[in-house]
C-alpha cells in the first residue's frame, strides 16, 4: 500500500519534471548529450519451444514468444505463430529477458587497464557531483561485447566510490556504437553516485582533509544537501515569480544534487554496512529525498525488512567478501534474504568478468538459499538480474520483463541460465539480433582489438 502510494508519487514527480523547464534542464533542452540510439528495423520473430523465465515470477515451459516492431508482442504456451515471422527453435533451451547490470564501470574503466583508461574517479574533491560518467566512456572497450555475449542488454555505468558524491551515472543499451550517445538508453533517468564508508575517508583522510572519518563522511553529505536545497529554493522562487529578472546562476554540481532532491535523478548509494545504510536512510529523511538502491550492501541481510519497508533496492553479489573491514560480513544468501523479506534484490557485477556470468552468480545465491531453507525459485532469482535492476535504474516500464509492450530485449540460452553450462546462443536488443554465438559477424573485435594478436577466436 505504502509502496504503491510512493510509486504513484514518484510517477507524478516525473511528470512534473518533464512539464517544467528548470534551469538545470538547459543541456537536455538544447539536445546536448542526448541519446542518438535508434534501433534498426526488427524482423518479426517467434521463439518457439523454450522454457521461458518471464521476469515477472513465471516460468513457462514450451512457450512461444512473439517479438514484433522491436517490442514483446505476446507470450504464452501454445500460441499460434502468425505468417511472416522468423521462427527460432527454442526446444531444449531457455529464454530470459535481456540481463541488466545495475553496477558497471565498462567503458570508463576500459581494457586494457592502463592509466590512460582510468576514468572512473574524479578523486580530487569529496564532492564531484558535477561530473557525468558518460563523458568518460570509451565505447571501444572490448568488454561491452563480452558482456553482450553474456546476455547483458542494459547496464548502468557509475562513477567510482572515491568521493562522497562521485557524479552522475548513465544507463546504456549494450549495442555496438562509436559514440557513447549511440548507446544511451532513451529516456532512462540519471543516477547520482553516493559512497559511504571506507573509500572516501581513506582517499581524503590520506590527503589530510575531510572526510577522514565516517562522521566526516556524513557531515559532507549533509552540507552538500543543504546547499542543494538552497539552490532548489532559489530556482523555484524564480520560477514561481514568473521568471522575472535574471535566473539564478547555474551550478553544475548543484544541478545534479537538486535533481536528486526533486526525484528526477535516482540516488545510487555505495554502502556496505547495515548501520551505515540506516544512517543514510536518515540523511535522506532529513532532506526529503529517496535512496533508490544500496550498492554492494554486504550487510543488507541484517536489515532486510527495513530495506523492504523503505522500498530501497539492494544490488549485491553472492561471492565477494573480505576485501575490506566493511565487507567482512558478506554472505552468499544476502540477495535471497532481501528477497525473502519482500525487498528488491539485485545481483550486480561491478566487474568486467562477472558481468559475463550474472546468471551464475544469481544461481549460486539461489542454490545457497535453497540449502539454507529459503525456498527461492528460478522465477524470483531471474528478477535479480532483470526486473529488479530495471527498477533500480528507473527503466522498469521499458525493460526487465517479457510482458507485451516492453522492449524486445531477449536472451536465448543453451541451458538453464543459472548454470555454468549456459551460453547465450542469441541476444536481441529492441528485437534486433546483437549477438549470435554461431555467427562470426557478431564476434568481430572492437576497433582497439582489430589487427591485434590473438583475435582469431571468440572470447
Amino acid at each position, binding site marked *: 500500500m505504502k509502496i504503491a502510494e510512493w510509486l504513484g508519487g514518484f510517477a507524478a514527480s516525473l511528470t512534473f519534471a518533464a512539464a517544467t523547464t528548470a534551469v538545470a534542464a538547459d543541456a537536455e533542452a538544447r539536445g546536448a548529450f542526448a541519446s542518438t540510439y535508434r534501433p534498426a528495423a526488427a524482423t518479426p520473430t517467434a521463439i518457439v519451444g523454450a522454457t521461458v523465465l518471464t521476469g515477472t515470477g513465471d516460468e513457462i515451459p514450451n512457450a512461444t514468444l512473439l517479438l514484433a516492431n522491436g517490442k514483446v508482442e505476446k507470450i504464452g504456451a501454445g500460441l499460434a505463430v502468425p505468417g511472416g515471422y522468423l521462427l527460432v527453435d527454442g526446444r531444449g533451451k531457455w529464454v530470459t529477458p535481456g540481463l541488466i547490470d545495475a553496477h558497471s564501470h565498462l567503458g570508463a574503466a576500459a581494457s586494457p587497464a592502463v592509466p590512460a583508461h582510468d576514468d572512473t574517479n574524479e578523486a580530487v574533491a569529496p564532492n564531484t557531483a558535477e561530473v557525468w560518467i558518460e563523458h568518460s566512456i570509451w565505447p571501444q572497450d572490448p568488454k561491452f561485447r*563480452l558482456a553482450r555475449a553474456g546476455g547483458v542488454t542494459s547496464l548502468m555505468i557509475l562513477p567510482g566510490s572515491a568521493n562522497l558524491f562521485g557524479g552522475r551515472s548513465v544507463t546504456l543499451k549494450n549495442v555496438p556504437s562509436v559514440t557513447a550517445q549511440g548507446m544511451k538508453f532513451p529516456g532512462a533517468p540519471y543516477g547520482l553516485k553516493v559512497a559511504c564508508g571506507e573509500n572516501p575517508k581513506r582517499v581524503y583522510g590520506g590527503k589530510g582533509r575531510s572526510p577522514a572519518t565516517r562522521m566526516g563522511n556524513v557531515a559532507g553529505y549533509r552540507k552538500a544537501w543543504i546547499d542543494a536545497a538552497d539552490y532548489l529554493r532559489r530556482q523555484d522562487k524564480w520560477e514561481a515569480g514568473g521568471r522575472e529578472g535574471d535566473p539564478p546562476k547555474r551550478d553544475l554540481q548543484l544541478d545534479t544534487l537538486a535533481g536528486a532532491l526533486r526525484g528526477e535523478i535516482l540516488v545510487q548509494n555505495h554502502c556496505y554496512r547495515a548501520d551505515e545504510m540506516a544512517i543514510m536512510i536518515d540523511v535522506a529523511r532529513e532532506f526529503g529525498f529517496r535512496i533508490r538502491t544500496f550498492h554492494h550492501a554486504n550487510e543488507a541481510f541484517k536489515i532486510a525488512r527495513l530495506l523492504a519497508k523503505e522500498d530501497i533496492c539492494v544490488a549485491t553479489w553472492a*561471492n565477494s567478501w573480505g576485501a575490506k573491514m566493511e565487507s567482512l560480513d558478506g554472505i552468499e544468501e544476502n540477495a535471497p534474504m532481501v528477497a*525473502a523479506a519482500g525487498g528488491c534484490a539485485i545481483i550486480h557485477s561491478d566487474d568486467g568478468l562477472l558481468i559475463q556470468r550474472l546468471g*551464475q552468480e544469481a544461481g549460486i545465491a539461489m*542454490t545457497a538459499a535453497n540449502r*539454507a531453507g529459503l525456498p*527461492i*525459485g528460478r522465477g524470483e532469482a531471474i528478477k535479480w538480474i532483470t526486473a529488479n535492476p530495471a527498477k533500480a535504474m528507473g527503466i522498469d516500464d521499458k525493460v526487465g520483463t517479457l510482458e507485451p509492450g516492453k522492449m524486445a530485449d531477449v536472451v536465448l540460452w543453451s541451458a538453464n541460465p543459472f548454470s555454468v553450462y549456459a551460453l547465450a546462443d542469441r541476444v536481441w536488443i529492441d528485437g534486433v539480433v546483437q549477438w549470435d554465438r554461431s555467427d562470426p559477424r557478431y564476434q568481430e573485435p572492437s576497433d582497439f582489438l582489430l589487427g591485434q594478436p590473438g583475435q582469431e577466436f571468440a572470447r
Partner: protein
Amino acid sequence: MIRALAVMLAFACAEPAGAQTLAITGGRIVTMGPAGEIERGTLLISDGRIVAVGADVAVPQGAKVVDASGRIVTPGLVATGAALGLIEVRSVEATDDRGTAAEDFSAAFDAGYGLNPDSLLIPVARLGGITRAITTPVYKDMGGRERVFAGQAAAVVLDGRAMLMKRGVAMVLEMGDAGAGRAGGARGAQLVALRALLAEVRDYKTRRAAYDRGEARDYMLSRADMNALVPVVEGRMPLLVSVNRAADIRDALALAREEGLKLILESAGEGWRVADEIAAAGVPVLLTPVKNTPASFETLGATLSNAARLAAAGVTIAIEGNGNHREREMRYNAGNAAANGLDRQAALATITINPARIFGLAGRIGSLEVGKEGDAVIWDGDPLDTLARPLAVFIRGAAMPMTSRATELRDRYLPSALPPTNGEIR
C-alpha cells in the same frame, strides 16, 4: 535425505578425527584414478587413509557409515593460485602475510611459515569442496629495492589443524609486465638479470665454505636467498612463473631449457597461442580460464577457450579459483572451462589430480586411491556447477563442520528475514 545426512555427520564429528573407519557407501565415486568412475561404490577410509574403494567393498563392523546413495563422491579439491592461511582481510595489513618487503628475503621467503589454521577463509573454501591448497606467496612491492622472487609456495591441508603438508613446493616468479617493472622497466633486463643470478647461485653452490669464510666474491642476493635457489638451479624445486604474453611464455620456456630448470607456468593468458611449444616442453600450466578480457597489453589474446586449447595440445592444466576469499569459485571456473570446450572429466581433473601431480603430491592426495589420504566430498549434483553444493566434506577421514562464520551470520539473521508464509518466494 539432506537432513538425515547432516545428523549422521554431526554424529561423526563428535568422534576423534580419523581414528576410526569411515565408509561412504552407495555413491557414484569419481575416483580420478585408474579405477575411473564407480557407479555404486564404497569408499573406506581408516586412520586417515583410503584402504579400499570399489563396487564390492565389504564394510567392516564398527565402521561409521555415511550413505551417499544417489550422490556424487569426488576427491577433495586442491586449490592453486591463492594464499590460504596467510590472509584474513585484504585491507588490514597486519592480517596479510602473503609477501614481504624485507631486504634480504626474496627467494628465501617461505609461505610455509606463519600459517594460520584458524583463518576465517578456510571454512569458506572448504564449503566449496576444497580440502588442500598450494599457499602461494605474492610480491609486496614497496619503494627501494624490488625483490626478484616472491618466495616459496607451500602445500597445506585445510582441516583446521596444523596446516603445513610440504614446504618449498615451488619458487614463485613474475615475468612479463610485472617482471620487467621490477627489473628496471624492460623485459630484456629481467631475462639478463635472471641468468646472471642463476649463474651466481651455481657458483655459490660450489663455494659455500669459501663464501662463509669471506673468501668468495660478492653476490647480488643474500645468503638466505642463494640457499633457497640451490634446489631451483638443480631442477628439484619447480620455478612457478606468472606470465601471459605468447612471446613472454616462449622466453620463460627458453630460460628453463637453457638453465635446466623445472618450470610451471601460471596465468598464461595467451598460452593457447603457444600450446604446442608448452606441451613439447612438458610444462604444466595453472590458469584462471574465465580471465578473457584484454586487461593488459600482455593479455590481448585472452579467450575463454584457453583451457580447452591447452588441454587439447596435451598440456597438463590446473584451474585456479578467484583468489583467497573467492577461492571457492574454483570449481565454477572449471565448469566454465567445460562449457567452453574442455571435457568435463578433464575439467574435474584440473581441480583434483592435476594440481596434485604438478606439485609432486600425487602420492598423497588428488584422487580416491588406496594408500592416499582420505579427502572426499559428497555432492548433491555436478561438482562443477553453480547449482550443486557439497553435502559433506572429509579430510583425512574426518567429517568437517559444514559451517563458516558466514553461515553463522546467515543463521543469526535468517529468522528476521523469513517470509510470513511458507511456500516458494516468487
